[in-house]
């Protein structure tokens, strides 16, 4: 594809300029559909989300799966690391954008976050539903090329801190697998306990999300981004609530730090070189 320095190339969005001002859009098309004169009032938010990322409308099965996934991911709750990050912003009276950015930064990580979703989706691309390949993959040392992501040892898609798969994750997996029918979710549901015994760890919500996003036909890159996007509502709501409650309502752990190398109180007048 050839590109011009003066244009934006896209298969997602087209604009017909307003007849009086070429800098304003008169008509906007998303993947060929007139957004404001056709889709508005007819399409649901979830269908539109699918259209933006896949450039086609979802079938009823895909719509139901994405709808279910969006509900399951929307709020991991105030103990979740990414929601806590947003709440830290709220508690201090930070801007709405910074609270969302804080949630994104934390939800992006390997530990139950979007990077984990990405790696599980890549693994689904490589290993499909071959349980023996997954066994080899999950028991091999991780070999991620070094870059700015920290090194991790936990197998992608599993919780580094527990052997007990929480009920909400099992409910999500059961519901989504039943909603969509045969696919990666159904495979994951069938083999969850086997996979958990291979890793010695509980299945994470990121693995369920990855299977769902793969079943919906999203690439690992798109899955990573959508996972982040779908988790924002709860983070934002909790941050707003915490902002209204104020900083005193947020745990500060006043006696919670223990320094292992505390030099003790130093006389201020005795300056060291």
């Amino acid at each position, binding site marked *: *594809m050839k590109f*011009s320095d*003066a*244009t*934006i*190339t*896209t*298969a997602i969005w*087209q*604009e*017909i*300029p307003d007849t009086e001002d*070429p*800098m304003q*859009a008169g008509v906007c*098309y998303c*993947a*060929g*559909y007139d957004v404001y004169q*056709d889709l508005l*009032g*007819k*399409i649901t938010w979830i269908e539109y989300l699918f259209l933006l990322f896949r*450039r086609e*409308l979802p079938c009823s099965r895909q719509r139901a799966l994405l709808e279910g996934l969006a509900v399951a991911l929307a709020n991991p709750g105030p103990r979740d690391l990414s929601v806590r990050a947003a709440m830290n912003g709220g508690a201090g009276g930070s*801007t709405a*954008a*910074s609270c969302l*950015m804080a949630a994104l*930064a934390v939800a992006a990580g390997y530990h139950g976050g979007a990077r984990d979703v990405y790696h599980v989706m*890549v693994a689904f691309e490589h290993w499909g539903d071959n349980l023996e390949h997954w066994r080899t993959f999950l028991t*091999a040392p991780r070999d991620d*090329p*070094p*870059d*700015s992501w920290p090194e991790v040892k936990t*197998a992608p898609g599993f919780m*580094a*801190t527990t*052997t007990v798969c929480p009920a909400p994750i099992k409910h999500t997996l059961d519901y989504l697998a039943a909603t969509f029918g045969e696919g990666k979710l159904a495979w994951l549901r069938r083999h969850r306990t086997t996979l958990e015994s291979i*890793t*010695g*760890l509980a299945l994470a919500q990121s693995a369920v999300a990855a299977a769902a996003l793969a079943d919906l036909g999203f*690439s*690992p*890159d798109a899955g990573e981004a959508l996972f982040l996007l779908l988790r924002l509502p709860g983070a934002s709501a909790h941050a707003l609530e915490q902002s209204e409650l104020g900083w005193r309502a947020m745990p500060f*752990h006043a*006696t919670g*730090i*223990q*320094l*292992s*190398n505390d*030099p003790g*109180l*130093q006389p*201020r007048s*005795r*300056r*060291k070189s």
Partner: protein
Amino acid sequence: MTVTPQPPPQVRDGEAVWITDMGAWFPGERVVLRGRDLFTELRDMSWMELLLLGITNRRHDPRQLRLFNGIWVIATSYPDPRIWNNGVSALAGSARSTASLAIAAATAVSEATIYGHRPLTGAMHLLRRVATQQDAGLALPKILRNILREARCRKQGHPGAGKQRAVAVFPGYGRPLVRRDERIDVLLGLAQELGFGGGRYLSLVAEIEKNLPGLGLELAANAGIYMAALAADQHMSTREFCHYVTLCFSSGFMCCYIDALNHDPGSFFPIPCSAINYVGTSSRSYRGNPV
């Protein structure tokens, strides 16, 4: 080789207390960083020295501090809003957002694949990997050939475009837009002036560059690999280097944000509707039921 499942750590152990040797604030009294009192032992440090102490837990001498400061000044903070990460900051200014949001977003965007934190970290890793294998007796052409073969076996994504993009196989070699890197001579001049012009990793940069054409790769070294080499010669680890470069572009971000604030709102390279080159599905009608 397989990994035997280990029992997971008990997260509950950390509920009541965070045990650390990094530092803490004693409200109303004092602050400790890396076991040192901020108000007595560290109060005359430059910001760069403080940053490096936090990252490495090592003190750096004045020549090293000039080097690490100089790398940031020379190679990382261009006040040009066309550069991708700087553009984020400029757009934030143009949209009348805040400086903090601009700088934070631009810093995060700097973890790019074709430039910024990821190839810089990859450059340091490349040098260390090559040096380790040289120490084991392997010849440089063979080492580089093996690295290229491994990347091809892994079916690594392309850095410049496509799905699952990945940092270049030889990060620090090649450059978007132009081949010549105007920063290198200035960086090397500073290194010479400080007596750091003869380090092992610095020499390795040129040796690798000489061997790349033998693999069919006509790639010139860029400033990133020199930054990595200079830091490696000062015993900075790959992870420490990754942390050191995290904030390195911030001065340029601030310039671009302020510059955009000084222009009219929304005036940063405005794009007319006609500049959208639509290559998607042609016009169609929605056939679903109304919501």
